[in-house]
C-alpha cells in the first residue's frame, strides 16, 4: 500500500517536492491529510497553492464568487434571525434516530480486548476458552485476520498501526475483538482470552522522549521518540534583539478528552458487495474514504449514513479508528449486522485527545510597552502515533501582536500514551494560553494596564510573514467591548488588594484570541433542488454534529435564492450515496465550507430560474401581443416572487416559472476558496473570580466573551456556540486532565466521575456573549465560523484573574486546587 506521511508534506517542502502523482492521489484520501486541512488551514494553504493540480483542487474561477456582497443586515430576510434547529425536537425528546439506539434483527455485539501494556510484543493470543462460551460467534485477532487485511494500517508511520499490531505501542491497542449474541456475552468473552506479552521499555513522558539518549522505538532519524522538529519560523533578528525587560515562563497544558455524550458507536452490515455503515462521525465522506481504503474497496461500495442525531464529536470523530475496520471485517465474516459500542473507558483511552503541551516562552518588552522580540518554543505530546500538533500553536504567536523579531520553534514527541488529535481545535487554545500568559506577565512586569498593553501592540494588518491581509478584523472591537461590558476601568486593581470575605480575594483578568478556525476550505459543495411546486430541497454532505450547521444551510439557501425559510427543507441526516463530499465538520469550517457550497448552489439555481423567468416574461408578453425586452440581469427574486428590478410590480411566482420548464431545477456549487486572505477568528474574554486562599477554590463569578463572527447568520446558534465553548473550556481550566500512572502507563481516570467535566453547578450564571459583526470578504454573507474559538481564551483570562486576585501565577492547566494552594504558598 502506498502511503504518504501527511504531516511531513506540510512540514518539509523537500519531501513535498519529491512526491509522485500516485503519492498525491493517495494523500487526497488520507485521513491524516484530511484532518490537517480541517484543523490547520493556515499550514496546508501553501501546499495547496503550490500543488493545486496534483491535489485535484478545482480551478480557481476567473470571475469572483457569485455576487456575494457582505450586504446590509437590514436587507436580509432570513439571515440574522434566530431560528431553532431543524432537528431540535428530535434532540430534546430523544426521538431522533441516534446510532446508539439503533438495533437490527440478528445483529451481533462486539467487545475488544485491549493491551494493558504501553509497549510490548504480543507473543500469543489464546481464544479457546472464549470461543467455548455460548453465544460467542466470532473472534478476530492477529492470528486469524484474513490475509487480505494483514497489510492494512491506519494513519502515518512509522511506527505502523496495523489492524492488530504484534508490537503494541499503547495501553488500549486492540488485541482481539469478540462478536457475540449480546454485549454481556462479548464482555465476558474478552475476559476469557489469554494473552502473553513481552513487555518492552516504554516512553511515557514527553520530555523524556525528547532527550538525545532516549530509547528509539523505530528507525527514527530524529533523537529518541521525536516525531518532527518543524523548521523554525524566524522574523527579523530574534537572537540579536534587546529589550528593557525580558520575561521567561514555561507554560503547560494537560491531556484533555472530549467526552462526547454519545460514546463512539456504529452499526454495520454488508448488502451483497456493499458495506452499509451507520456511525457516529463528523465527516461521513471521510469515514467512507477511510473504510474504503482500509477494506480496499472503491468509494461507492461503502455507504455511510450519519443519522443527523449525534451526541457530538468535538473533533475526535473526523475519521475512523481500528475498531471500525474490525467491525466491517466481522460483519463480512459472520454475515450479520455488527453493533460496536465503545465503552466510556475506551472512548477516553483509545481515541484521540487534545495533547499535552509545553511552551517555553521568552518575550522582550520595552518600558514604553512596545514588544521587541519573542522566542517561543512549543512541545506537543503526539502520543502513540505519528501526528503533529506543536506548530499549530504558532498562529496567534505569529499574527496577534506586532513582534518585530520572532523565533518560533515546534517539536512533536511520540510517547506510549494518549494519542493526539483534534478536540474543538487542537493547538490554538494552547497557543492562546501561552501567548496571553506571557503578555499578561509582561504587562505586570512593566506596570501596564493589560487591556491597554494589548491594544497598543495589536496587529490589525495581516500575516507579517506571508503578507496575506486580514479581512475587516474585529479584534479591537472585541477587546473594547469585553473590557467595557465587564467594567474593566473601574474594576481592575493591584494584585491581592480586594478581600471580599475573610481569606477570599476578588480578581479580574483578560485575554485576547486569534485563530485560523472558521475559515472555510475545499471542497465546498452542495446542491439545491427547486421543485416544480416552488418548494426547495437542500442536498448537502455536511454532517451536523450539534451546532446547527444544516439549519444554517437552509437559511443560507432561503436568503440566497430569495424564498421564504419555510419553503426550504434540509434533512438532518447525511447519506454518502446521494451527496457530494463537502469536508468534515471540524475546524469550525462548515459555515464557509458546506455553507459556501449551499450558497453557490442556490446562486446557480437562481441564475437558471432568472433565465427561465426572463423567457417567461417575454413569452407571456408575446401572448398578450406585447413586445418586451427582459434579460436575467434585470430580474431578482424575493419571497418566492421573481420581479423586474425597474418595476417590482411586474412579477412571476417561482412555481409558475419552474412548472413552465416542466422539470425540477438543480443548482450546484462550482467553487474554490480564494487564498488571498489570512482568514482569522477574533475574540476577547474577560473574567472575574473569587479565590479562596484557605481551600484553593477558584470561583468564576462572571465571564464576558466577545467574538467577531463576521456576520451572525443565526444569532441564537452563535450564542449557544459561544456559551457551550466557554463551559467546555472551564472543564479544562479547572478540572479536566486525563491522568496515567507513571509506573505502568495505565489510565487513572477514564470515567466521568474521576475525570470531572463540569456540572451545571460549576458554571457561572453569568456567561455573557457579545457578538461583533465585521463582515469578511471571503465569508458567506460575511460570516466567519465560531465553533472552536470560544475554547481558547477562558484559560488565560481566568489565570490572569487569579493573579489579579492573589498575586500568584498559575502556569499550568488545569489550575487544580493543589496547584493553586502550592502557588499561594510562594506568595504568602
Amino acid at each position, binding site marked *: 500500500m502506498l502511503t504518504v506521511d501527511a504531516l511531513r508534506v506540510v512540514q518539509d517542502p523537500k519531501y513535498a517536492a519529491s512526491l509522485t502523482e500516485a503519492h498525491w492521489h493517495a494523500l487526497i484520501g488520507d485521513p491524516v491529510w484530511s484532518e490537517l486541512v480541517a484543523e490547520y488551514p493556515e499550514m496546508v494553504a501553501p501546499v495547496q497553492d503550490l500543488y493545486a493540480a496534483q491535489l485535484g483542487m478545482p480551478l480557481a474561477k476567473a470571475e469572483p464568487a457569485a455576487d456575494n456582497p457582505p450586504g446590509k443586515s437590514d436587507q436580509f430576510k432570513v439571515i440574522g434571525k434566530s431560528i431553532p434547529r431543524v432537528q431540535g425536537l428530535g434532540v430534546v425528546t430523544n426521538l431522533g434516530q441516534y446510532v446508539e439506539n439503533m438495533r437490527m434483527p440478528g445483529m451481533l455485539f462486539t467487545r475488544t480486548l485491549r493491551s*494493558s501494556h504501553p509497549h510490548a510484543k504480543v507473543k500469543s493470543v489464546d481464544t479457546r476458552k472464549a470461543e467455548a462460551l455460548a453465544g460467542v460467534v466470532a473472534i478476530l485477532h492477529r492470528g486469524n485476520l484474513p490475509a487480505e487485511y494483514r497489510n492494512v494500517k491506519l494513519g502515518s508511520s512509522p511506527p505502523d498501526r496495523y489492524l492488530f499490531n504484534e508490537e503494541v505501542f499503547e495501553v488500549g491497542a486492540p488485541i482481539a475483538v469478540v462478536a457475540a449474541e449480546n454485549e*454481556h456475552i462479548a*464482555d*465476558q468473552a474478552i*475476559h476469557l482470552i489469554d494473552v502473553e506479552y513481552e513487555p518492552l521499555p516504554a516512553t511515557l513522558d514527553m520530555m523524556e522522549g525528547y532527550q538525545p539518549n532516549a530509547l528509539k522505538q523505530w528507525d527514527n532519524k530524529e533523537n529518541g521518540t521525536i516525531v518532527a522538529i518543524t523548521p523554525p519560523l524566524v522574523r527579523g533578528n530574534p537572537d540579536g534583539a534587546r529589550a528593557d525587560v525580558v520575561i521567561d515562563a514555561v507554560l503547560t497544558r494537560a491531556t484533555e478528552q472530549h467526552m462526547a455524550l454519545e460514546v463512539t458507536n456504529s452499526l454495520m452490515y454488508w448488502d451483497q458487495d456493499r458495506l452499509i455503515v451507520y456511525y457516529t462521525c463528523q465527516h461521513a465522506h471521510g469515514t467512507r474514504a477511510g473504510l474504503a481504503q482500509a477494506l480496499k474497496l472503491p468509494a461507492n461500495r461503502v455507504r455511510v449514513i450519519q443519522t443527523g442525531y449525534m451526541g457530538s464529536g468535538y473533533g475526535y470523530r473526523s475519521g475512523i479508528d481500528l475498531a471500525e475496520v474490525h467491525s466491517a471485517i466481522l460483519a463480512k465474516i459472520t454475515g450479520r449486522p455488527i453493533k460496536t459500542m465503545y465503552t466510556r*473507558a475506551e472512548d477516553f483511552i483509545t481515541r484521540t485527545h487534545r495533547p499535552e503541551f509545553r511552551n517555553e516562552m521568552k518575550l522582550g518588552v520595552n518600558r514604553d510597552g512596545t514588544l521587541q522580540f519573542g522566542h517561543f518554543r512549543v512541545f506537543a505530546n503526539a502520543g502513540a502515533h505519528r501526528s503533529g500538533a506543536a506548530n499549530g500553536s504558532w498562529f496567534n504567536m505569529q499574527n496577534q501582536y506586532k513582534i518585530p523579531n520572532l523565533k518560533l520553534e515546534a517539536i512533536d514527541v511520540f510517547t506510549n500514551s494518549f494519542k493526539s488529535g483534534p478536540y474543538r481545535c487542537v493547538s490554538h487554545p494552547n497557543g492562546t494560553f501561552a501567548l496571553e500568559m506571557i503578555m499578561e506577565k509582561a504587562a505586570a512586569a512593566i506596570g501596564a494596564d493589560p487591556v491597554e498593553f494589548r491594544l497598543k501592540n495589536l496587529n490589525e494588518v495581516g500575516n507579517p510573514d506571508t503578507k496575506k491581509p486580514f479581512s475587516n478584523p474585529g479584534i479591537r472591537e472585541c477587546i473594547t467591548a469585553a473590557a467595557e461590558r465587564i467594567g474593566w476601568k473601574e474594576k481592575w486593581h493591584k494584585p491581592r488588594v480586594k478581600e471580599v470575605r475573610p*481569606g477570599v480575594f476578588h480578581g479580574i483578568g483578560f485575554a485576547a484570541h486569534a485563530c485560523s478556525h472558521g475559515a472555510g476550505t475545499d471542497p465546498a459543495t452542495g446542491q439545491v433542488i427547486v421543485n416544480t411546486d416552488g418548494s426547495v430541497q437542500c442536498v448537502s454532505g455536511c454532517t451536523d454534529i450539534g451546532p446547527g450547521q444544516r439549519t444554517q444551510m437552509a437559511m443560507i439557501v432561503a436568503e440566497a435564492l430569495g424564498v421564504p425559510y419555510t419553503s426550504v427543507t434540509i434533512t438532518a441526516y447525511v447519506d454518502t450515496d446521494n451527496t457530494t463530499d463537502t469536508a468534515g465538520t471540524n475546524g469550525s469550517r462548515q459555515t464557509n465550507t458546506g455553507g459556501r457550497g449551499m450558497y453557490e448552489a442556490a446562486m446557480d439555481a437562481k441564475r437558471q430560474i432568472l433565465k427561465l423567468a426572463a423567457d417567461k416574461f417575454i413569452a407571456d408578453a408575446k401572448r398578450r401581443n406585447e413586445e418586451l425586452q427582459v434579460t436575467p440581469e434585470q430580474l431578482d427574486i424575493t419571497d418566492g416572487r421573481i420581479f423586474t428590478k425597474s418595476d417590482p410590480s411586474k412579477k412571476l411566482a417561482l412555481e409558475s416559472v419552474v412548472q413552465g420548464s416542466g422539470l425540477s431545477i438543480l443548482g450546484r456549487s462550482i467553487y474554490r476558496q480564494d487564498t488571498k486572505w489570512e482568514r482569522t477568528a477574533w475574540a476577547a474574554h474577560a473574567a472575574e473570580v473569587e479565590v479562596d486562599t*484557605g*481551600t*484553593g*477554590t477558584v470561583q468564576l463569578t462572571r465571564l464576558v466573551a466577545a467574538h467577531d463572527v463576521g456576520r451572525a447568520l443565526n444569532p441564537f446558534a452563535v450564542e449557544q456556540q459561544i456559551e457551550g465553548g466557554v463551559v467546555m473550556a472551564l472543564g479544562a481550566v*479547572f*478540572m479536566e486532565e486525563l*491522568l496515567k*500512572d*507513571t*509506573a*505502568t502507563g*495505565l*489510565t*487513572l*481516570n477514564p470515567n*466521568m*466521575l*474521576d475525570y*470531572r467535566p*463540569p*456540572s*451545571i*453547578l*460549576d458554571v457561572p450564571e453569568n456567561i455573557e456573549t457579545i457578538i461583533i459583526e465585521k463582515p469578511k470578504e471571503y465569508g458567506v454573507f460575511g460570516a466567519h465560523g465560531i465553533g472552536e474559538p470560544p475554547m481558547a481564551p477562558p484559560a488565560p483570562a481566568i489565570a490572569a484573574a487569579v493573579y489579579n486576585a492573589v498575586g500568584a501565577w498559575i502556569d499550568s492547566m488545569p489550575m*487544580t*486546587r*493543589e496547584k493553586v*494552594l*502550592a502557588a499561594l504558598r510562594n506568595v504568602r
Partner: protein
Amino acid sequence: MKNFELYEPSNVREAVATLVKIGPKAKVIGGGSDLVAGVMKDWVQGNGMPLPDALVDLSTIPQLKGIKVDKTGATIGAMTTLTEIVESKDLQKQFSLLTQAAHSVASPLIRNFGTLGGNINQRPRCWFYRGAEFNCYKKGGDFCYSVGGDNRYHAIIGGELCYIVHPSDTATALLALNAQAKIAGPRGDRTVPFDQYFIGPREDVLRENILKADEVMTEVFIPTPAPGTKQAWSKLKNRQVYDFAIVSVAAAFTTDASGNWADGRVVLGGVAPVPYRATNIENQLKGKNVKNSIKQAAATIRTAARPMSMNAYKVDVAQTMVERTILGALG
C-alpha cells in the same frame, strides 16, 4: 459484566440464610450504584476480592425501609434512600447534620437510588483499586500503587499498606452523631456503635468495616442529641455535583453559657481509610472558649497528618475546613 444469580428475599432472615448458603461469593445489594454499576461493571476483582456469583437484593424487604423518630432518637432502615433522608422533616429538625451530609452525596439521580446502608458500606474510590489492571493490597494483591503514584486524593492520616480514604459522607456524619448500626447475622442481631464499626487497613486490608460476609446491616440508630447541640457539615469537592469529598467535616457539640466547649465530636471524611474522629481537636477544645481556641485546635490536625508526595495540600484544607465548620456552627 460477569454472570450472577439474583436473590430476592422477602425478609431479613431469608436474606441471611441465602448469604450463609452461598458463602462469601454472595453479596448484598442496596441501590446497586456502586456494586453493580461500579465494581461489577468495571471488573474490579482480585484474589482477595472475587466478583460475586450471587446478589441478594434487599429492596424486596419492606421492613428495611423507613424513618422513625421518637424521644430517644431516630431509627433509619438501611434501605431508606438518601432522598428520603434528605426530605425527612423529622430528621432535618434534630439531625440536620445527617440531612446535609446525605444531600451532599453525588446527584439527585443517585440519591433517589442510593440507600443509607449502601452509602455507608460502599467500597473506596481509590483509582488504583478501581482500575482493573492494578492488583493492589485491597484486592488481595501485594502492592500499593499510591505510594509511588498519583496520590493527590489519598489518605493523609492512618494510611498503612493501603492509603484509601473512606468514601461515605453519611458515615462521617453518623459517627459525629454517635450513631450505631444494627446488624443481622446467622447468630442473631447485634448492635455496633459506629465508633467500632469501621476498620483500617492494619486490621484487615480487604475490608472497611466489621460487617461479615453473612451479615446484613438492617438499620441505623441515632440518639437524640443533647439540647442545644450545634451541628455542622461541610464538604469540599472539586465538582459541585457527583463528587466525593476532598475533605469533609462533621461536627456536633455543645457549649456552655459562656461559649466554652462542653462535649462533642469532630469527624473528618476524605482524609483517612475510616471516617476520622479528630479526638485531638476535641481534647484541645474541651472547656475552652470555642471561638477563641478553634484556630489553634484545628492546627493540631497537622500533628496527626502524614501526607504523601502529592496530597500535603489536603492537610491545609482540612485545617481550614475544621476551623470554618466549627465557627459556622457557632453561627
